[in-house]
């Protein structure tokens, strides 16, 4: 079973993603803030992290940086959850090592398709 970790301070979003992805047979782990998210990532080594950008205290960019310099977590693909549509954020994120963007609010179909695509791509890379 694939493991996906969602890091977001909005509880509704955590619950919603959890319901949608569980339906697809994915194991969903939830973290309500950046620090907790980072610890959980190290502990469970998920196949994908969905990371919110705007969070109090540690924001998404800071968590992303922490994940990318840590040998334990640097190979885990990270997709950013964002409410901004500006391309500036996208360019910045790709430099920092994020591989995709999911814009809030999202449709369940879109979320499933994006997560599915990332997981298959990562899988292919592992098998090679």
């Amino acid at each position, binding site marked *: 079973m694939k493991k996906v970790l969602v890091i977001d301070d*909005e509880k*509704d*979003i955590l*619950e*919603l993603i959890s*319901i*949608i992805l569980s*339906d697809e047979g994915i194991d969903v782990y939830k973290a309500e803030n950046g620090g907790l998210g980072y610890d959980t990532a190290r502990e469970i080594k998920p196949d994908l992290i969905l990371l919110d950008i*705007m969070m109090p205290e540690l924001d998404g960019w800071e968590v992303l940086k922490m994940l990318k310099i840590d040998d334990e977590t640097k190979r885990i693909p990270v997709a950013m959850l964002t*409410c*901004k549509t500006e391309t500036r954020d996208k360019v910045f994120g790709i430099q920092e090592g994020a591989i995709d963007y999911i814009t*809030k*609010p*999202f*449709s*369940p179909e879109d979320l499933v398709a994006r997560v599915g695509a990332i997981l298959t791509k990562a899988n292919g890379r592992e098998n090679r």
Partner: protein
Amino acid sequence: MKKEKDVANLRKEWLLFKGALFDHELGFPTIPIVVNDVRKSIGSFQKIGIVYVDVIESIEIIHGWQKFDQILLRLANILKGLRSDLMHSEDIIAIKASKVGGFIVFIFSKDTDEEVDKEFMKTIMDALQERIFSRTEDLRRKYLFPKTICHVGMDFLYFDPVVRFERNLYSAIDRAKNNAYSQTTSFWERRNQELKRIIINNDIRTVFQPILNLGNGDITGYEALTRVSSLEFFNDAETLFSFAVQTEMILELERICRKNAVKMVKYALKNKKLFLNVSAKGVMDPEFMDGKFMKGVEDTGHSVNDIVLEITERLAIKDIELFKSAVKKLESSGFSVAIDDVGAGYSTLHTIAELRPTYLKYDMALIRDINKHAIKRDLLESLVPFAKKINSTIIAEGIETKGEFEVLKEIGIEYGQGFFFAKPGPLLRDET
């Protein structure tokens, strides 16, 4: 098992609906998704307080939506801070619609079980107004809306079994919004009250900055500067003075500043000069003419010869002849005159040529980095022979570095003041 699945599905639908009606950027829900929570609370309180915060629309028209969004985000953060400090956990903050703005705060109770009342609402409004005012100074200045970037108003929603709850709620929100547009003037009015209070209670602080002879380092005099003691309505002295100009209270304000300064230097001046700031309008204050101020100076053991009136032109001088004759009268009664901020603002060469003041206080903006900017240096150098010709002494303001100080000495500037020598502070009795 199937039932569980149905529940999860319903929950998913609801969360999707909520997600679409939530402004993720600002982090607040919109009205449709909080209606039920508000309805639940009105049952136990009968009355709900509503605060409405509306950003001035023309900011978006002039500066574009990106800048407008930036203001909304700032306000959202101020409101979040307010929630954690002043509001109860059951109170709700919402926005009119996603990406639209218009913040609405629902306040249910005063203390956990007491009904919210007008007084409590006023406390919240005051705190909010004050925080918005003090934390948006940069934005107000940048976007050319110096007084305010948003309107804040309030009203109550009363439980009424006859009217459908939703309609009752929306009309209360509309009332709070309408109230917001009459509140701006009232915030202005409250600042006005505060200024009057400051004047009546003499609630300012006076500090002194030494003016030095750049050649030998001797202190030749002190400039008295005013500091605001209550920061609630005025960020700094500059805001206080410009507000006093706008409300025609500058004469009264300057009177108490002068009085305070003279009182504080009592017996501590020791043959040094005291520089007092006066606006161009203040020059015509009758207290200079009828001898009241002079008597005040003499009562502290000084003579008017020790006093230098530093004239700041806050507005362009309309009637230069009238102004000139007022200044001449001051000089003939013994005061010396300095022109403040030479090179900046409204201090024109024209007034300098007309007045031929004893001192020219050269503006700090032109002193800044004078050791690095050849043009700034040339500019000051060109003023030196002119000052000599009209018998004025140049005082350089705002010297902050050794480099600036050295260039000024090279040019032959006689006097100066600034952080490099001393910050404005209390005048010590035994200071020499």
